[in-house]
């Protein structure tokens, strides 16, 4: 029933366990369960555990590893460690839905009109399709706190811009294919920008600096420019508990 685990090394420090070839919230639960298992195992030479779309990467300190296992190859060690690990539904932790306000007004959404036109939709329909889904956070990457989320309704899926923008404003919400994401900082970027959130996605001063984590569930709701201004002033750094 179970496929054998596919484990490969990418350099001396990074081991990746690839669990699936499918990008889906269901398949990703297994990714998160394995990340949690590895975290709890607390191997002393493991420096980081990075969940991604289809698998988990483990970053080790090879010198510390070799002090403990002088004659072993990290890849083979991990095979042995995970030999008995199997995903089961009991390991599932369902995250509460985090609600994120987005202003979809054209001033905040340079690509929403073009996206609507390309998809034969009205702007309101694009907003409705974007806000009706509960998205799954597959991974944090690209820049500090950037959440890769999906899956976007097929009707509003749009490939990346052919020429990336030199500056996307912090808080911008974008679509790239079946993914949606939020830029935590001003940056160059090629995603179709359809709105902007007043929420701060990343704050290095916090113990947990990212608003969103891999495995989280997210739903957007529409706000107007006045509400955006109001929330920008009183932006909660993190969700109220």
């Amino acid at each position: 029933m179970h496929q054998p685990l596919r484990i490969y090394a990418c350099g001396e420090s990074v081991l990746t366990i690839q669990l699936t070839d499918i990008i889906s919230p269901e398949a990703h639960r297994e990714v998160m369960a394995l990340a949690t298992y590895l975290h709890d195992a607390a191997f002393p030479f493991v420096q980081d555990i990075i969940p991604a779309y289809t698998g988990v990467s483990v970053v080790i300190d090879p010198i510390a590893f070799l002090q403990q296992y002088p004659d072993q190859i990290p890849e083979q060690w991990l095979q042995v460690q995970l030999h008995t690990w199997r995903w089961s539904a009991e390991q599932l932790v369902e995250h509460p839905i985090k609600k994120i306000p987005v202003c979809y007004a054209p001033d905040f959404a340079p690509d929403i009109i073009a996206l609507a036109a390309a998809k034969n939709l009205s702007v309101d329909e694009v907003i409705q399709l974007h806000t009706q889904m509960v998205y799954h956070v597959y991974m944090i990457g690209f820049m500090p706190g950037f959440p890769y989320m999906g899956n976007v309704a097929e009707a509003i899926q749009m490939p990346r811009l052919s020429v990336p923008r030199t500056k996307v404003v912090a808080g911008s919400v974008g679509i790239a294919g079946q993914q949606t994401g939020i830029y935590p900082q001003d940056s160059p970027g090629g995603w179709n920008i359809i709105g902007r959130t007043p929420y701060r996605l990343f704050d290095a001063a916090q113990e947990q600096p990212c608003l969103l984590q891999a495995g989280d569930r997210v739903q957007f709701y529409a706000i107007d420019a006045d509400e955006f201004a109001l929330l920008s002033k009183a932006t909660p750094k993190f969700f109220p508990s």
Partner: protein
Amino acid sequence: MSAVIIKAGLLDQLVDLGRKGAQHWGITPGGAMDTYSMQVANCLVGNPRVTAVLELHFPAAAIRFDKPALIAIAGADFGAKLNDIDWFTNTAALIPAGTTLRFTKQLKGARAYLAVKGGWSIAAGLQKPLQKGVSIAYSPFQHASGIKPLPWRASALLPRYTLRLLRGPELDWLTPDAQQALVQHAFTIAPSSNRMGYRLQGIVLEKLHQQELISTAVSRGVLQLLPDGQMILLMADHQTTGGYPRPAVLIQADQPLAAQCGNGETIQFEWMDMPEALQALQEQERDLRILQQACNFRLQEYLCSI
């Protein structure tokens, strides 16, 4: 009282070994480009090897020391001068208050590392380019007056332009010809290369198919194959995830050598196996430990004798 940047360099900043363990937040580990020379500089002044040092690119800053200090320079040779006295790479020196350190020409390597006994205060911030007028605090190191280069030198990594690679997860996405070309042809480090990555210019490497890779974590040393068939070598400030095929990974023991190759220089690659790569890394670590012990011993002896 501290060291003052009296002329800003091209890109000078305080670096350490980087922040490990935050890549799952999208935070790149960063840290020194040449982690070996950074540790050599620390060994020369008797610091713990992880202590933050100044990473200098050429043209490098001019720095005035307002307190006496024990300092060391390692990595690239930028023709350092303490006031008017030549100061050699991979050595330490005792300097009195008011000494100015300048760099006159780029003789060898791309990045120099400046350590001070007791460490730099990192209040100016890690990995923030140092501007003219910025001062960085350090604890003074009292000694008899005069500039005194110390009479020993750390052995450096020998420069080498053939760097060693581990096979990457997507090596077999390349045509057999491209797999051979990777280790038969030379690649030039493009002018747009920086601390994030080196763009390598050379023969176009053909893929067998146009399959797309789903993004996953990447690390320093990974060679990514871009859609145009050219490669990028990820360096200290790389993005944390990537979706380009990874035909190969530069072994960790050779990453400091790559960090000393500047833009416009040409490098070649050869294959290595994982056990050999791990052994090379262990040997490098052992060399650093021996250097640290030797430096501590010589320093103690020397400082007692003056």
